[in-house]
């Protein structure tokens, strides 16, 4: 790909902070943003919401990458319990939704549209509210919803 791709980090960071305010207002989590680029993703952003009393962290991820020659802008969410020791402390929202046949695409392909990004982030936020409320509250933990490597 010869054309230079404009970073979406600032825009996405703002969108995430806006769509996930419920984590701060209802569950008392505190956000922290980190962005980077590496050999895997052209750029990526992680907004990590943490509540040390409930011993939970929620990661909302955004990443731009090439997959089978398509430029993809993808969003994802996961939760981990603190302190993280191994994969049993990791809850993949994607894996969980797949297990109940409620998975959906969270990628924008070849073109970043702010309004579509908001729709995706809102769906993820609603999934967390609908399916992970007790986890966010630190009341329960669901095991075996980590991404398997084989």
């Amino acid at each position: 790909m010869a054309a230079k791709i404009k970073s979406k980090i600032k825009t996405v960071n703002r969108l995430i902070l806006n769509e996930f305010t419920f984590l701060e207002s209802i569950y008392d989590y505190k956000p922290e943003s980190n962005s980077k680029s590496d050999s895997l993703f052209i750029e990526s952003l992680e907004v990590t919401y943490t509540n040390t009393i409930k011993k939970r962290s929620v990661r909302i991820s955004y990443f731009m990458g090439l997959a089978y020659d398509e430029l993809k802008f993808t969003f994802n969410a996961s939760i981990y319990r603190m302190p993280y020791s191994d994969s049993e402390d990791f809850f993949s929202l994607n894996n969980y939704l797949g297990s109940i046949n409620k998975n959906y695409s969270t990628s924008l392909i070849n073109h970043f549209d702010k309004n579509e990004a908001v729709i995706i982030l809102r769906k993820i936020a609603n999934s967390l509210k609908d399916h992970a409320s007790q986890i966010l509250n630190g009341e329960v933990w669901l095991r075996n919803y980590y991404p398997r490597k084989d």
Partner: protein
Amino acid sequence: MDKVTKVAGGLKNPEIFKASLNAITEWDNLLKEYNGKLIPEEIVKKTKIFQENQKWIKEVKGKGYDILDTGGGSTSTFYNMEKEVVYGSKN
């Protein structure tokens, strides 16, 4: 991983591979990006979870641990890497 955990449960002081938080988050993101499609081997090899797994298996081999092979898919980049380290060949 479930099978590995199950087998390890019956052993005394087993060591099993534990992915770091950043590695498992990155892997979860990659699965989401490929959305059910096969992730190319050259991409898998760049991931933190693959590199951590490779470092771990080399270490346990180097320390002389008994290594239990619980099997795996012949097309698994991870399993093939582990076999190469343990047996010197992926076949």
